[in-house]
């Protein structure tokens, strides 16, 4: 009975937009599928759109942190877009860390952040002469 979340590809970026209240099975399915797609596609960025998401509990939080970790291992960045302020405050009180993901106001800003990051990295690689 789980709804599957479609994963779209926009250029080098994978986009998962969560539009309904997901059950845990659907959350795990999304985690597995996004993980696989990151590996297969060599995408440089992942956007998880939670504009329509009313709550982020520890299960969803862990999914996001796991995806960000997988992505980072493969040199891709994850941006969570559309987090509501009430959700952010609840996360802080819950004591949950999203494991260091970027956030952006909306999809457009998120995509732009990934672009910049990419440009910055390509340039930065030379400059980081450490």
């Amino acid at each position, binding site marked *: *009975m*789980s709804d599957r979340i479609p994963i779209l590809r926009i250029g080098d970026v994978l986009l998962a937009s969560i539009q309904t*209240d*997901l*059950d*845990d*099975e659907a959350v795990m399915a999304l985690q597995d599928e996004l993980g696989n797609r990151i590996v297969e596609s060599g995408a440089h960025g992942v956007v998880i759109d939670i504009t329509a998401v*009313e*709550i*982020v*509990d*520890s*299960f969803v*939080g*862990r999914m996001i942190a796991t995806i960000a970790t997988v992505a980072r291992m493969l040199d891709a960045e994850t941006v969570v877009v559309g987090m*509501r*302020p*009430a*959700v952010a*405050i*609840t996360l802080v*009180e*819950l*004591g*949950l860390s999203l494991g260091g993901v970027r956030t952006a106001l909306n999809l457009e800003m998120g995509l732009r952040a990934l672009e910049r990051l990419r440009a910055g990295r390509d340039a930065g690689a030379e400059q980081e002469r450490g």
Partner: protein
Amino acid sequence: MSSDTASRTQTITSNDDVVRARQLVRNLAQECRLSLVDQTKLVTAVSELARNTLIHGGGGTMAADFTQEGARRGLRVRFEDSGPGIPDLQQALTDGWTSGDGLGLGLSGSRRLVDHFDIVTAPGEGTTVTITKWAR
């Protein structure tokens, strides 16, 4: 309508039921005029506790009702299962402690997110968690 008594009880025996539990409480919280932040906190706590009922308690029920204290109105939600119970409650209420592969933030975190948190449990006697959130 969400106001009749029947709709305020939710069996929790599947992942879908956890979703239904969240939605039921969301509707009641709106009816009760909780602020948006308080709705979000309460529904998040409900999600954690309903999952515990399902996963750790082997299934059970959730019952929600309005409650009054002087002029204040609130929403009270009770989760009940007849699972294994919790042998060491203090440990279970510690941030990050889990007997499984969770994050161990369900009990401790949802306790913080609500105004009143009450848990009755004993080994072999199941677990009942009751939470309350007051409207301002």
